[in-house]
């Protein structure tokens, strides 16, 4: 069945924030900053980039970390700073905002599609995607789309992922946990 992507109210508001922003140039600039662990995915598509503002001469970027111990967060912060510096912006501040806590619901539809392309199953590809627990089986294989898959480990290559294997194509794959 063809799934029609829908936006949650929260997602919609977040997209509006960007659309109505007075510094679209900065948002676009930061689209070049990728998650170092998943280099196809921009910080915007991950839902990490929460706000960008010009405050006088200063640029303030607000991000929300995915997992508290995620080592990629430090790299992302540095990459944001480098991207701004490369554009000649030297007055900036990267603010970490903890509340509300990041959730996979903040990933964009494009981001989810990019995850699949990269070989990672997004949270939506679990059999019961409303349930936030990682299922024991049935997550759609990002390689062959089969649902004959099983969980190998609840913890995968990074804190945000669980490890699965497909019984049809035999490939192991990561599943992005629904949090």
């Amino acid at each position, binding site marked *: 069945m063809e799934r029609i992507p829908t936006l949650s109210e929260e997602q919609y508001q977040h997209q509006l924030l960007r659309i109505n922003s007075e510094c679209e140039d900065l948002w676009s600039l930061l689209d070049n900053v990728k998650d170092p662990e998943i280099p196809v995915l921009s910080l915007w598509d991950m839902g990490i980039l929460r706000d960008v503002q010009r405050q006088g001469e200063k640029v303030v970027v607000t991000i929300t970390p995915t997992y*508290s111990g995620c*080592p990629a967060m430090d790299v992302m912060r540095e990459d944001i700073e480098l991207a701004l510096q490369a554009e000649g912006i030297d007055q900036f501040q990267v603010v970490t905002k*903890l*509340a509300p*806590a990041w959730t996979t619901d903040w990933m964009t539809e494009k981001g989810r599609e990019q995850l699949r392309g990269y070989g990672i199953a997004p949270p939506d590809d679990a059999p019961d995607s409303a349930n936030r627990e990682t299922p024991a089986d049935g997550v759609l294989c990002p390689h062959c789309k089969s649902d004959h898959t099983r969980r190998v*480990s*609840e*913890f995968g290559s990074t804190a945000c992922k669980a490890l699965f294997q497909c019984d049809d194509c035999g490939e192991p794959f990561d599943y992005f946990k629904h949090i």
Partner: protein
Amino acid sequence: MSDLKQDTINYTVRLGDDALILGHRISEWVSNGPFLEEDIALGNVSLDFIGRARMFYTYAADLSGEGKTEDHFAYMRNEREFQNYLINELPRGDFAYTIARQLFVDTYNHYFLTALTKSSDENLAAIAAKAVKETKYHLRRSTDWTLRLGDGTEESHKRMQAGIDDVWGYTKELFEHDELEQRLIDAGIAVDATRFKDQWLADIAAVIKEATLEMPDGEWAVRGGREGYHTENLGHILTELQYLHRCYPNSEW
């Protein structure tokens, strides 16, 4: 600085100490796990705790001002200044012992962090909101392992029982608080753990029963962590954890 603010700093550092010391302990399993996936799982859990410690310490540093950073709390304090609960510093033991500690602590954290999300201190509430999601995963894993080891082979059953018995007396102080914490409880900032002690006990008893294990008997208790009185284990942890920073102060990667 107001007394309440100073109390909040101390309390936040305590929570950071709990997370850092346990996170470091679990990290000792990396490359020593029973099999690859479990090795990775332990590494992930460890990172969650260390990440949590960084958030608590960073917040404490922001509150204190004086140019402090998270590193000050992690690297520049001695044993007597650390105020983690003793359960977190116990050696990693065998795998069953590690799992027994995790079962107790994860169940505790599940209730503790849920309550902390309601703190009147919005920063503590935000850190808790982040951490409680991770704890859900930790708890599921430590519960699964307790069942698997308890209801497993004769050897795994024996070891799981021994782990539970040996750690038990260190859970008592998790439900006690001193005057500082009482003041913060009254102010709606800190969590009153006595409120969920019965639920915690009921949860633990249910898992232990399902795992065909016995509830530990005996009223022994070891306490002192919140006052800075530690077992000899903490000194050894700090030696390893702080060595690099103290040898090469302010060096950066």
